[in-house]
């Protein structure tokens, strides 16, 4: 291979020659799949904000001892680069040249390096630990509950109303409308809505009320049919069930809304369940449902849509309550145990916030060293960037 002839460039008179960068180090990016190498260096001494002569840097790579290849042009002031176009099993070395307006000064080459892959991402070890702690807490309490320990769960206002709302529809002889949001099965809110559907459908089957569930995803339709069918079977009346109870409308958000609005004004449901992931349509549905005099129980984990449900519906499950609902409705010990596990997470969050705020406050106002180190530790535990 041919080295860059530094001497030649430097000896050319009349050109502005700048000092090279120094201390170039190439190191393997830790905890990745062996696809990136980090470079760092000390910028040229001619690289200054005022009267600086360096107008930029070029990064060159030599792959398996071949020809140097320019891989990046960087602005003055740069002192690091991350090369993400490397492969495992090859050797790479690098050099960086400093550019003046008329010349280029290369640095010395780095030693050859092969990108390595690691089997565990230690940068995310805090996430892993937190996952184990929370998962462990949830599983622990599920086990505790299974062994027969009674666990307390506070009232959730919207859910207390479910039975009444179904009873009302039965009395009035009008149907119940169940809308599981507009997202697909790949959203946890939809799954939460469907588990609530399971409990609701059980009651409906007992009461012999009509249920109608228009959906905007056919996977949700498939699951919805399974659930309602199973509920009717469990209630001992599989003959009443029909596939028409769950209908796919269209995947298009507002096309779905247009059709559901039509259903609402024509069928005049006595009760509407609006549970799942909702977007702008939340208020359109809730207001139309209200205009036909339906009792509405809504719930979503999308903070932006909660205000509209709170304003326009009779009961609203706020955020986490949607996920707690299925556990609460079933009353099964295992499900209750998982709620208790969630609360452990909340306790951890509160304690961490308390300590974090205290130490940040103290170190901001009075600058105490060891307290600052607590803050740093806490940030390391909870920050994942």
């Amino acid at each position: 291979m041919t080295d860059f002839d530094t001497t030649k460039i430097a000896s050319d008179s009349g050109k502005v020659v700048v000092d090279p960068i120094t201390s170039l180090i190439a190191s393997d990016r830790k905890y990745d799949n062996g696809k990136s190498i980090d470079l760092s260096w000390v910028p040229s001494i001619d690289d200054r904000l005022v009267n600086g002569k360096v107008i930029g840097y070029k990064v060159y790579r030599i792959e398996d001892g071949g020809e140097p290849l320019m891989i990046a042009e960087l602005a003055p002031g740069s002192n690091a680069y991350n090369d993400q176009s490397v492969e495992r099993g090859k050797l790479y070395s690098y050099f960086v040249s400093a550019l003046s307006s008329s010349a280029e000064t290369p640095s010395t080459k780095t030693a050859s390096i092969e990108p390595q892959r690691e089997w565990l991402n230690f940068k995310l070890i805090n996430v892993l630990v937190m996952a184990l702690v929370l998962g462990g807490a949830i599983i622990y309490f599920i086990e505790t509950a299974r062994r027969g320990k009674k666990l307390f769960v506070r009232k959730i206002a919207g859910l207390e109303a479910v039975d009444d709302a179904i009873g009302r529809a039965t009395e009035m002889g009008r149907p119940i409308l169940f809308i599981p949001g507009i997202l697909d099965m790949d959203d946890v809110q939809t799954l939460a809505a469907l588990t609530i559907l399971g409990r609701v459908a059980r009651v409906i089957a007992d009461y012999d009320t009509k249920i109608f569930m228009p959906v905007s995803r056919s996977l949700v339709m498939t699951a919805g049919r399974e659930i309602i069918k199973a509920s009717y079977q469990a209630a001992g009346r599989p003959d009443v069930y029909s596939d028409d109870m769950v209908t796919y409308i269209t995947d298009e958000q507002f096309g779905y809304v247009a059709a559901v609005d039509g259903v609402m004004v024509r069928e005049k449901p006595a009760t509407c369940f609006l549970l799942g992931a909702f977007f702008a349509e939340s208020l359109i549905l809730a207001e139309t449902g209200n205009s036909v005099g339906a009792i509405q129980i809504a719930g979503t984990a999308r903070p932006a849509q909660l205000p509209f449900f709170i304003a326009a519906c009779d009961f609203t499950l706020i955020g986490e309550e949607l996920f707690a609902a299925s556990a609460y409705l079933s009353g099964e010990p295992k499900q209750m145990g998982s709620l208790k596990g969630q609360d452990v997470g909340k306790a951890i969050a509160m304690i961490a916030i308390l300590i974090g705020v205290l130490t940040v406050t103290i170190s901001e106002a009075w600058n105490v060293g060891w307290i600052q180190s607590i803050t740093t530790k806490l940030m390391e535990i909870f920050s994942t960037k």
Partner: protein
Amino acid sequence: MLDVTFGIPLVVLSDVGQAISLLLIGGGLLWIFIRSLKAKEVDRRVVFLFIFFAVAAPILFPITFQEKATPIVKKLFDKVESLPAGSKVLIAFDFDPAMAPEVQPMANAFTRHCLVKGYKVIFMSLWATGQALLTQTLERVVKGEFPEKQEGVDYINLGYKAGNEGVLNVIVTNFRMMFPTDVNGVPLDSTAVFDGIKSCGDLDLIISVGGGKPGIKEWVLFVGDRVNVPMGAGVAAVVAPQLYPYYPKQLLGLLGGVKGAAEYESELVKHYSRFEHTDTPGLRMMGPQTLAHVVIMAFIVIGNISYFIGRRRERRR
């Protein structure tokens, strides 16, 4: 469009239309208010009709409200107002067509203000799609309203450069490295605007108009915080709250959404009579917005009055 309809000059027709629509909305609200005193609810269709009317009327007969600039806007306006003639101001068009209805009025207002004050203006964009919108402003505002201004002497268009914040990282120390020439290929050295400008540090004011990434935040981090140049910004309403923390230290002032644009435009019209008849899209869009907000607030108040009166009656029984 005709200037005269049914023999009536359009200006008069518009005034009459404004008056009638305001009277209708006002009278209607009064009627509902009186009804609410009797604790009677109005049909929701009446509510619908009101909101339709409150939005449609100001579109047909443009109604503008006097906007009083909030401090955050006023400070930026005053800064632009107080620079000496010949100051060098950079205006960045960091937005795409989707955001344009909201933020381009701001960019136009800044441009008008700087040109009328006789500053030398540098235009550029970090968004590929921003360049077309920049051209629009140059054609309509700069060439259309200020035909006496010369490209290269009074203003210059650097156009778009790829590289996002990387571009900023370079121009903070050296313009010519990133932009050897302007968008038409004229070397910067041969333009009067760039006389004495090497880097962003030589500017007197930087204004970034945008709403995404790269945008105002990047300008603050990569330029504003590094060299001591005053910065102002115009942003889409959605991102405005995230930028308030930069005010007033890192950003002199901030225009948020249509309302910010309207406030700036109204200040401009107040100070310069030559802009009395220029289009003020910000103010124009605020017409329907304001009326609709007023109607909604009126409905909240009226709804509560009828609720309380109704409840009191029930208690008496």
